[in-house]
């Protein structure tokens, strides 16, 4: 079990949808002691009270473009040490991408090869930005194994997946 279940409601919000039911469904699927990591396009202040009622403390961090990452932690447990990859990243200090990779016209697994090759070119703390057609599920563990952190999600068109990778400092 991971310490936090990731819930990204940004696509729903961008599409003008109502993410409350999705968040509540995710909440019900949590295992005992597990927290929730929420990504939203605004600071979800009204949710904080709802979650406090359910016994979750919150800590929020701003992301680029006015977006927010919020950690909801069961009040009984202390916030876990933050693993590599997406988890717990403070994205404030992420510099502009040094490399841009557009791998949308390559079929799997070519995008993974190109992104890993580009990542190897990054200097300490530098980032790369990559465009793909789908969530690169095999790539994430590879990035984490090599100490990279990453942030990814579908753009509002729902077709392009945008991935940012940061080299270890």
């Amino acid at each position, binding site marked *: 079990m991971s310490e936090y279940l990731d819930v990204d409601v940004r696509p729903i919000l961008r599409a003008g949808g109502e993410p409350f039911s999705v968040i509540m469904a995710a909440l019900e699927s949590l295992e005992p002691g597990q927290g929730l990591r929420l990504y939203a396009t605004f600071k979800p202040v009204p949710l904080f009270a709802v979650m406090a009622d359910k016994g979750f403390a919150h800590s929020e961090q701003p992301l680029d473009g006015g977006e927010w990452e919020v950690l909801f932690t069961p009040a009984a447990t202390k916030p876990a040490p933050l693993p590599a990859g997406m988890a717990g990243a403070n994205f404030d200090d992420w510099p502009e991408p040094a490399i841009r990779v557009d791998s949308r016209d390559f*079929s799997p697994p070519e995008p*993974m*090869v190109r992104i890993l090759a580009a990542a190897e070119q990054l200097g300490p703390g530098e980032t790369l930005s990559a465009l793909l057609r789908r969530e690169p599920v*095999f790539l*994430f*563990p590879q990035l984490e194994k090599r100490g990279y952190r990453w942030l990814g999600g579908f753009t509002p068109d729902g077709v392009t997946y945008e991935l940012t990778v940061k080299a270890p400092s």
Partner: protein
Amino acid sequence: MIGASLSRWTMSYFAAALAWLFVALALMVAGIGYPAADLQSADTLVLVHAVCIGWLSLAMCGALFQFVPVLVAKPLFSDGWALPALGLLIAGLVFLLAGFLALGGRLPAAPWLLPLGAILLAGGFGSIVVDLACTAWRRPSGAARFVLAGLFSLCATVVFGSIFSVALAGWAWPAAEAVLESGVALHAITGLGGWLTLTAMGVSYRLFSMFMLAPEIGERRSSAALAPGALAIAIVVVGGAIAIGRASGSTAVLSAAAVMGLISVALYGRDIVAIYRGRQRRRLELNMRMAVLSFASLAAAVVLGGVLIAMGTFAAHLGAFVFLAVFGWLSGLILAKLYKIVAFLTWFETYGPVMGRTPTPRVQDLVAEQRAAKWFVLYYASVWVGTVVLLLGEGSVFRIAAAAMTLGVFGIVREVIRTRRLADVTRPLPVGAVAPHLLFARN
């Protein structure tokens, strides 16, 4: 963690599945079971279960252990269940087949064999269903819904089969007798139509648009194909149980399920055509070209079924219809996808650790498609010839077709083993990369 890693035992499932496929082909070549014997004979039961459990179900389970985590971008619910489940399934199948052989008088009578086999199979399939369903449930959308419907059908199939085993063992239980009397069609439909076909449909939606760089089919459209298929299975399970309880005959239930199944296959066919048409990759890889032959077989099976029903000879030619569906559609598709999946997983396992740091071969460099193509063509051609021969009632010629199928499968398996052994890669293994084991992933 978000993401998917290599499934450790997928190769072991594939290897076991292919071994059972050879067992089944050997039976057909030897003339044991249908068409030499009746469809209801004990020998045919041996053949059918070697194919459906040994070959198709093991291959499907092996693929799902890898595919479901990719689908939901989450790790498998539990890593520890796959290998014990494989052991239970193989042991259960051996006892089940021994039970059928005893039933047909080829082994000394031992009524406990069938229930014991059923218990072991239920244990194996049960743990796989829990593991995969709990994984798929983490993001139950799109293709994962097909998998969940398929897993539900698998449960229904196992329940029907377990009841049969008790009835065949002769243990006094009148309800089981009644189920055995009229439930065989329901068992076959939930197994072949629900478990294997719905799951294969779901997997192909995702894999095909991925391999061909085609736009994904939207959730609403794929659900439209799933809904009538899932409804057909629900009708079979619920309606079938009611019909058995009332002893009212299951013709109405089967007709309703057939109509729903037909709608599901038609909508699925429309979506698959859309994926092929919308692809950005003009040149198709071998596995996608061969998949076309599987779809042709599925369409041919649907047409054949319709013609036979219209002519009133469906019951007489049921064997030929099922043969085309099982070997043209399901087996052909699984063989074609297995060829691709083994290449990809082998490539990822071998070169993943050094990818990006040093030049690595492409997935395509692990296979020799031109050499493999002829074996696939031989396989499909002999399946189609075999179907025609069965329709014409030429049992002895069928054995020749089965021998040709065996040769085709043998050629395909040889290619798959070469892929796994990196035999066609000309480049030496880079420093830091480790050649994979034939039968499991080292992770």
